[in-house]
């Protein structure tokens, strides 16, 4: 028992210390949420800090769901979520939609397929179509790779592609966009989805129902799979949180968003 007391004294003492660096200071802002939006938020934060000396912004890349929960619990000041719409558990929060983020369906560069219809994508991911030859490719079994359950990109993708039933149980799962892209880059038979920001030369982004995956097509709504990026606060944002959100919604913030490959809302 005695040692428990010792441990708790140490913990309590250090908590006191820790407290000073925590929420108390008014020039620190904690963002938490979407792994997909994190790099963009990092760029926004860098630009914001350049204009506001002495400000620190911590960005926790923890996934949309946990981000929302953290704002509710008061662990984070601003939540980040990339979802098709505001979910039930975030209805009580104040939400700002700051951009739209297209999700590209990607395959290996050597794959002969260049375009799929929304329906074909849904059938591939639900396991109805299992061979590339059924969608105009070579005779090879399709390796389906998706994001982990609960990630914003997964929710957006499953909802907007209207996967009937469930995602096939033989799908592989990865915990981030980068990991999905990495797997597809190595596997000629793989298909997955990543946000536009993550698309590079190592993978090929498919046309969706004949529409190119581009910022313009996301903006005019022709491209079918795009998440809305939300910044969320508990109640009206105040202080630094308000300044940051205003900055993101302003001309400069929206320009940075566009440069990152997302469709700004303005």
């Amino acid at each position, binding site marked *: 028992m005695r040692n428990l007391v010792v441990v708790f004294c140490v913990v309590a003492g*250090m*908590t006191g210390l*820790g407290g*000073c660096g925590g929420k108390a200071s008014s020039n620190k802002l904690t963002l938490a949420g979407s792994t997909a939006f994190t790099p963009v938020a990092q760029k926004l934060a*860098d630009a914001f800090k350049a204009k506001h000396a002495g400000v*620190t912004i*911590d*960005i926790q890349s923890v996934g949309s769901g946990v981000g929302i929960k953290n704002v509710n619990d008061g662990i984070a000041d601003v939540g980040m979520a990339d979802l098709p719409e505001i979910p039930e558990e975030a209805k009580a929060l104040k939400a700002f939609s700051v951009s739209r983020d297209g999700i590209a369906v990607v395959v290996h560069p050597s794959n002969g397929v260049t375009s799929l219809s929304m329906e074909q994508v849904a059938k591939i991911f639900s396991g109805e179509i299992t061979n590339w030859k059924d969608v105009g490719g070579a005779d090879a079994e399709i390796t389906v790779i998706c994001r982990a359950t609960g990630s914003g990109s997964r929710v957006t993708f499953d909802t907007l592609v209207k996967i009937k039933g469930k995602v096939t149980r033989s799908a592989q799962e990865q915990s981030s966009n980068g990991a999905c892209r990495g797997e597809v880059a190595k596997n000629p038979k793989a298909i997955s989805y990543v946000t536009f920001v993550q698309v590079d030369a190592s993978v090929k982004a498919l046309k969706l129902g004949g529409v190119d995956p581009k910022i313009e097509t996301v903006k005019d709504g022709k491209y079918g799979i795009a998440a809305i990026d939300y910044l969320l606060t508990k109640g009206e944002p105040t202080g630094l949180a308000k300044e940051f959100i205003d900055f993101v919604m302003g001309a400069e913030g929206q320009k940075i968003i566009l440069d990152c490959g997302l469709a700004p809302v303005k």
Partner: protein
Amino acid sequence: MRIPPRAVHVGMLGILWSVTLAAIGTLIWIIGWVLWHGLPSATPHFLTSMPQDSGAEGGILSVIAGTLFIILGAVALATPLGVGTAIYLVEYTRENWVTRVIRYGADCLAGIPSIIFGLFGYVFFVITLGLRWSILSGSLTLALMSLPTIIRTAEVALRSVPQGYREVSYALGATRWQMVLRVVLPGALPGIVTGIVLALGRCMSETAAVIFTAGTVLPDRIPTSPGDSVRTLAVHFYLLATEGTSESQPKAFATAAILVLAILVINVSAYTLMHRFLARYR
């Protein structure tokens, strides 16, 4: 036909030689592969500048600082507990059910997978105690994890101090505590330090327990308080490797090379220390 025993002996020896060489070869290849890919990008500038653009540009200075704070904090918390345990086991008690319980506790703690420590640290330190993702939460979690290592090496070190030293000390009229403080601890110090250094290495290479307790913030400054959230080198490497864009891969390799080099240095110095220490009493 019966194979002559001599031939069996030679054959088996060959097989044993080759599996050992295979194991050593794998080790050398792994270390070589990481250093070969990583060292070219691990420039002095990389070590001394702050990360930019989510780690795709710039260096890892704040990550190095965060790693040091977390692992030093962990060891600072675990050392008094671990060494105290060892002193109790060696100097203050005989084998009985209490020591068996203590040893069983330490053994079990040593076997618990790091992800369980991560889960625990997340509910207990981050949420229940309200420490959030912070250096402190990370250090506390790692302290629990490295406790068995420190206990075990300290115990070995204390036991290797010759019994005669203790007897002389008593003969001179010292109390037990004076004997421990003035004679046994100084004699066992290098061995105890070895354990601490090994624990530093173990903490440094840990990912699963840290990522859920210290968070994933990539700071662009040296952390100033135990309440700050940071990445350790291992976490930074993991996130760059799996979440980063293709452009950030050279930085991922460089981080891995620095991590592996640091751990090599730590382990080799721990080993040399222990070797010298044991030689002293042989």
